[in-house]
């Protein structure tokens, strides 16, 4: 089954040079950015609102609506969030390495729509190659007059600065990212204000959008709102990129239409489980998302609404597949360890809670769990995210703490017997996760 390609079409058709400005220009490149110069802010915001484009970083918030919140003070800034760090996610890396101009054209469109004259692209520090590729694209675009003084021969000035992060997942949270870009510790800011569009970088109105979100914009202007919406499924418009990893035969990034089922994704796109093993569970939307299992979820369509109703989210588009030799305690420990390591430490429930969740899981996995530990996991989790509900409530400034609760509720609801077996038998019942050849 093949699906229509939009964001990944150029790199598929022209693998050797999809990153160059020559190839980009030869395939319609920068025409939409130029056209945007003749449009008003209201026109552009209305088009993006009407397109139904949802942010592709994880929160799935309406991009057009975010833009419409921009406060009137100036200067306004644009910060592109390329701090892709959600475990399982590697789609923005491909967009940056293989088609950086597509993203940059989105930057120009967004800047014009939001009266921005200085944009920043914040790329995680562990992505030097994507950053180098993007910087060369930026240099090419400056040389053509697409950035700098009077872009495209107009009287509109626009600069762009590529900024490398320092290896902190939390900087993907937009207010932490702004603090980091200001040269501060990457700690999320207290809300309100809820949106950087009110007060963001240097306390000025700021738009923060994800790399993939940017990459969609030239296509929305090019094909028009109706054609863009028709690519999707109901409220989930356009295509989306999913990063597939773990125990599947064909891991990788795939551009897909919303509305296909998890069965199609895992068994057709992903080619099924290596060694014809059984599917045990999967993470449907990055490490922050509660896990799905085949009995309840395999035939659900992949949409924001269906996934949300089933108690999880599409998040960053990362799908991590686990076979039947995977120990749920060890898998949960690895995900919780991530959040424990990445907690910024500002809020006590997250700083202390994630640390204790990791330690409790580790002792259960080592066969040293106590009978009370199962309840203790839920109790600590409840202190981080009261009621263990979905969407999660939070006792913290940002959603990182509640994200660490997702693997706990996932294993305690679906695999409690397996967790308890670790405790009663005093050992992990799994010899070892089978590594596919």
């Amino acid at each position, binding site marked *: 089954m093949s699906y229509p390609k939009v964001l990944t079409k150029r790199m598929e058709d022209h693998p050797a040079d999809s990153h160059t400005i020559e190839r980009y220009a030869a395939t319609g490149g920068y025409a939409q950015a130029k056209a945007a110069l003749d449009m008003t802010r209201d026109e552009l915001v209305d088009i993006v609102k009407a397109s139904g484009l949802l942010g592709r970083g994880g929160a799935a918030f309406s991009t057009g609506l975010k833009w419409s919140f921009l406060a009137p003070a100036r200067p306004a800034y644009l910060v592109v969030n390329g701090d892709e760090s959600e475990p399982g996610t590697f789609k923005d890396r491909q967009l940056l390495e293989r088609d950086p101009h597509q993203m940059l054209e989105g930057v120009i469109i967004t800047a014009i729509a939001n009266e921005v004259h200085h944009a920043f692209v914040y790329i995680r520090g562990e992505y030097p190659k994507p950053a180098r590729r993007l910087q060369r694209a930026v240099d090419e675009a400056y040389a053509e007059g697409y950035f700098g003084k009077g872009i495209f021969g107009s009287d509109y000035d626009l600069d762009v600065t590529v900024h490398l992060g320092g290896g902190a997942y939390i900087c993907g949270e937009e207010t932490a990212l702004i603090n980091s870009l200001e040269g501060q510790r990457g700690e999320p800011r207290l809300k309100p204000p809820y949106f950087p569009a009110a007060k963001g970088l240097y306390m000025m109105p700021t738009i923060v959008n994800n790399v993939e979100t940017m990459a969609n914009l030239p296509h929305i202007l090019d094909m028009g709102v109706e054609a863009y919406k028709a690519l999707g499924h109901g409220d989930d418009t356009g295509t989306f990129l999913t990063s597939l990893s773990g125990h599947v035969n064909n891991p990788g990034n795939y551009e897909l239409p919303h509305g296909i089922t998890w069965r199609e994704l895992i068994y057709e796109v992903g080619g099924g489980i290596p060694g014809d093993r059984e599917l045990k569970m999967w993470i449907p939307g990055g*490490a922050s998302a509660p896990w799905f299992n085949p009995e309840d979820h395999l035939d659900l369509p992949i949409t924001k609404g269906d996934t949300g109703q089933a108690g999880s989210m599409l998040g960053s588009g990362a799908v991590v597949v686990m076979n039947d030799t995977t120990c749920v305690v060890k898998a949960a420990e690895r995900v919780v360890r991530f959040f424990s390591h990445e907690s910024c430490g500002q809020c006590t429930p997250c700083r202390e809670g994630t640390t204790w969740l990791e330690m409790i899981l580790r002792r259960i996995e080592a066969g040293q769990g106590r009978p009370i530990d199962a309840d203790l996991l839920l109790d600590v989790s409840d202190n981080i995210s009261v009621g263990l509900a979905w969407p999660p409530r939070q006792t913290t400034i940002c959603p990182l703490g509640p994200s660490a609760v997702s693997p706990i509720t996932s294993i305690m609801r679906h695999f409690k017997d397996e967790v308890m077996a670790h405790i009663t038998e005093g050992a992990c019942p799994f010899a070892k996760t089978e590594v596919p050849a």
Partner: protein
Amino acid sequence: MSIWSESTQSRAKEILAKYPEKRSAVMPLLYLAMAEDGWLTIEGMTEVAEWVGITPAQVQSVASFYTMYKREPTGKYLVSLCTSISCMLLGSDDVLHAIEDESGVPHGETDDEGVISVEHAECIGACGGAVACQVNYELIEGLTPEKGRELVRWLKKARPDAVNTDEMQELFGGRRSFDWAIQSDVGAAGPYPAFEPYGTATEDAK
């Protein structure tokens, strides 16, 4: 008087010109300081403070927040092996043990000669190419325990001036997250990311 070389000082001026406020240059300048000294020294952080007009304590508070600013002596080759969920499912813990065993360096430490540092990293965005590893943040995908040992032996013996992602992928890598398609022509000379505007990308890595 700056403790930095002339070329690093001119880099610092170029970087400062890219931001509306000086303090935003703290993170890039910290990478410059690492490139000057091989790791992030107190003197380096104090120099950054001078450039951006804040106190050394403020710079240290920023540097200590981020894992990539190494405030202790770090080997010429920083081997960061991902052991997050997707890599763990594909056997990263065995690869880490092989690298630790072959190098004699437990994660979080550096060998006596200052050649190799080993650390386990949280997700580095190469999950489709698990098990993933970086040397000075230059990526290798599809690493196995045996290839991990070969990597360590090569670093110790060949001691390249700079490491290049395509070269290492060719020598030691396996399955990739996606078709890389295009070669990278620069490499990383120390335990910090190779990025042209920071002057840390070394030409002709091979």
